[in-house]
């Protein structure tokens, strides 16, 4: 199975994950400061800054794009409850 490295810089931890893993599946278990509200991609609470590896994430859905826009997110921000890590290395921190 393809794997990827997902690094949470705020807790200095890298987790080796299967391709397709969402950030939400990992971040709470390791104590990262990324926080969640609706967990369904609507509220924007879990906006997360992608420090490295933006291209190694799944493309945002129309809903995620709208929520990011509505919440004035930056170009390298994603919703941790939505985006999936596909391959390579991804480094994130709370938005």
């Amino acid at each position, binding site marked *: 199975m393809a794997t990827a*490295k997902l690094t949470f810089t705020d*807790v200095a*931890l890298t987790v080796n994950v299967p391709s397709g*893993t969402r950030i939400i599946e*990992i971040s709470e278990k390791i*104590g990262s*400061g990324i926080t969640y509200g609706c967990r369904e991609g609507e509220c*924007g609470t879990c906006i997360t800054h992608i420090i490295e590896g933006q291209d190694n994430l799944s493309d945002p859905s129309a809903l995620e794009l709208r929520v990011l826009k*509505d919440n004035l997110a930056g170009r390298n921000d994603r919703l941790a409850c939505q985006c999936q890590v596909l391959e390579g290395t991804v480094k994130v921190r*709370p938005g």
Partner: protein
Amino acid sequence: MTSNAPASPTADRARPASGGPQEVADRVTWIGALDPGLRNFDVILKTANGTTYNSYVVRGSAGVAVIDTVKQAFTADFLAKLEAVARYDEITTLVLNHLEPDHTGAVPEFLRRAPHVHIYVSPRGVQVLRALLKDEFDRYQVTVVETGDTVSLGDRTLRFLTTPYVHWPDTQCTYLQEQNLLFTCDLLGCHYCDDRLFNDKVGDFRFSFEYYFDHIMRPFKRYVAQALDLIEPLEIDMIAPGHGPVLRAHPQEYIRHYRRLITKRLASETGAQKTLLIFYVSAYGATAQMAGAVYEGAAESGDVCVSLFDLQDGDVTPLIDLIEEADGLAFGTPTINGDAVRTVWDLLSSLVDIETKGKLGAAFGSYGWTGEAVGMVEARMQGLKMRVPEPGLRIKMHPSAPELEECRDFGRRLAAHLAGRPMEREIDMSALLAR
């Protein structure tokens, strides 16, 4: 004939209802509602003499604007005042500075009567407006505005300031340029009800102004600072908030006071050094031993300022100020009846009044049978948007010498995170399955 019967509480609470709209400035009219019977607001705030829901009408040569509305229960009162000063067909503009229900309760009915109006909201306000209007949202003209955008009413101009998180993500202010009048909604407001309306007429309401700040704005100090950065350069002759008195006498003093309230009163002696506060409660001395060892380990490197506090029998209130300024918090608690002890929960529940996002958190404790308390405290800290980089440390009964060394190591790792020199770790996802 006299009666010894106590006065009716209802009669005590009653104040004369406002008779109608009140002019607050040339062609600017207050059309809000008085709620003198309210005794608590949003559950969390005591309101000893109620509150007001302030709404305003601004009349220009080529349009009329309504600025915010009122709580739903006061819709009829609001509409009656509105109809006394404007016809629906001449109202062009509805500005919603904040979408919380106490300011938007009358919006649906108002829009049914004036469906042609153009609605102006902040970027995040539009999300809540969509939820408020449901299927009817698409019927209306809605424009998202940001700092610097303006709306012309002919000889009057409304300019918007995007001021998020004071105290919702959607909050904004609106500046009536020609009259140096700022509509701030919750910012610079307070829960104080008096039909004399103006700050130089309503009596001493300072307690209410600061109480409101402490419970509504304090968790968002850094956003208040950003809002003040936008507001302070403006010429301001009057502030018209969404609750409480209209600030027409020395309005700048209230802005300066907000700046004081978000500024540290005494500079910290720790300077730029990171700080770690260790709080503990101990039933038999075991968690106290752990706390002492965590302290020793964290203080060892000397680059983090570590302090140790026993919460036993203490009032947690004074600790809120301390925690607000700290970079890291560690809580030591035994597990009693499957739970953390009450003093720890008292302190953790009090932290809702301050910003804790991004602070480092950690938990440890001794236990006899089950040891759930540590995980519960960690979950609470995550709920407070803190990062909890080190898995909590639990020790069964009193710590042995090697276990005390584990505690010192735990303290060393916390200090390393705070000082920006954490040991980078790598694990497989399978290691998380048990968490």
